[in-house]
């Protein structure tokens, strides 16, 4: 018994997975090309392949730690300030994201729950509009 939502192209949803991690628990990452031989990286590569094979992949990226963030504030359409660091100084910061296609929220939640980060919080947000879609 599947979803009643017809599986037409028109009804495919898009979701952003915002992956929040506790940076104090993260191993240092300073290489631009991750070591594909490590167990952790193999899991991420397998996960990416799963998204691609299932027709879910749109985009995805792992980000430098939040200390590398520069925050620009815009007021009334004009930049008013540039600050060093993320918008909120908390231990939990966005570590990466995926943009995926899924039939519905249940499928998206299943994909998000399979993300191979051992400890992470994944926010699943439906995409309202995407200019290049």
């Amino acid at each position: 018994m599947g979803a009643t939502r017809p599986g037409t192209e028109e009804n495919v949803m898009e979701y952003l997975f915002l992956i929040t991690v506790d940076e104090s628990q993260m191993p240092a990452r300073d290489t631009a090309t991750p070591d594909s031989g490590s167990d952790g990286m193999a899991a991420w590569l397998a996960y990416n392949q799963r998204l691609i094979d299932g027709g879910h992949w749109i985009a995805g990226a792992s980000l430098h730690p939040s200390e590398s963030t520069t925050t620009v504030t815009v007021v009334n359409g004009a930049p008013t300030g540039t600050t060093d660091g993320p918008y909120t100084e908390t231990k939990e910061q966005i570590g990466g994201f995926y943009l995926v296609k899924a039939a519905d929220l249940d499928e998206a939640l299943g994909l998000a729950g399979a993300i191979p980060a051992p400890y992470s919080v994944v926010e699943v947000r439906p995409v309202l509009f995407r200019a290049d879609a």
Partner: protein
Amino acid sequence: VTDPDPADAVTRLAREEGGRVTAILAARFGDLDLADESVQEALVEAVATWPDRGVPDNAAGWLLTVARNKALDRLRRTTSAARRTRALAPDLLERDRPADERGLLMADDTVADEHLRLVLLCCHPALNRDAQVALTLRLVGGLTTREIAAAYLVPEPTITQRIVRAKRKIRTAGIPLAVPAALDERVDALLQVLYLVFNEGYLSRGTDAVTRVDLADEAIRLTRVARSLLPESAEVAGLLALELFQRSRFATRVDDHGALVRLEEQDRRLWDADQVGEGNAVLAEAMAMLRPGPYQLQAVIAAEHANARTAADTDWPTIATAYAQLAAITGSAVVRLNQAVAVGMADGPLAGLALLDGVEGLDDYHLLHAAYGDLRARAGRPDQARASFERALALTDNHAEQGLLRRRIAGL
């Protein structure tokens, strides 16, 4: 045309058929909001026209036909291409085809499946618990937002907003009308919602009204619906039995002055024998499935009380065993508290006190101190008992419970 009171007939129609008709339209149109709004609009039309025209013989068929036509009207008015596309289901574009309505509302596997999907959708984990409760009462239970608001003593716009937001999230986040892969988890959420509604009717804290019969009865009605849709679930049957046993005692839970009456002081002749009998039968069917669970264990405990002819006849060792199993499953401190009370009855107050000392995290819970008070009184320690009852008194704002505690103190 029959001659019942039209207003009552509309309320009954909403309760009995609103959920099923909403489920059918939501599945066929692929649009829950459209289905709900159309059913509501049809019910408004019934309120307006039935007093003059009379109540139709087949009110359920009338509701499905009129709500479907309202949905088609909405689709024709809307500029949303997506909605028009979904409406291309050919069986829906033909108006004036009432012949199949009777069949649609009969016990039909497709309709039962659509109904189940709606019931499960309302308890999707992407919706918060308040939203799950409001959606279940409105979409499955056929209650109006005004009725829900009155039952929960909150302003009507609060419930309206809750339902609007939940329906918006269902649409924007793409929550599907589907039977989930993890069915047991969803059924568990459904049972939590139904029991929450039942308990809201059973005991409302902070007000003088001890029981609000309507929500408890609505919960029982909805649990019956869940049981008909999930006949293989032992826990759904367990919850229904539990609710029936608790409901059977409504007449004796408070005295003429609104004060709570303890179980052992209630007049058991006034317990509803039909509800106890049905509870026994439903619990037996649940336990024959050999899939035990927390609702069945709670029903076992409630059954022991309901079937004891006098308080002295209560089988406390069986109750204590059921609480021990329940504590092992749930790990709940409140269950351990109740286990200590039962052991105190089965093996004496000192055994109960020993278990109570091991209960953690309930220091601000009035019933922990009430239990201490009772066990200490029975252990011949009136001064300690008084201190415990007074602590309990300070921790509850329910007048009925306060009255009970004052009487316990006076009786020391």
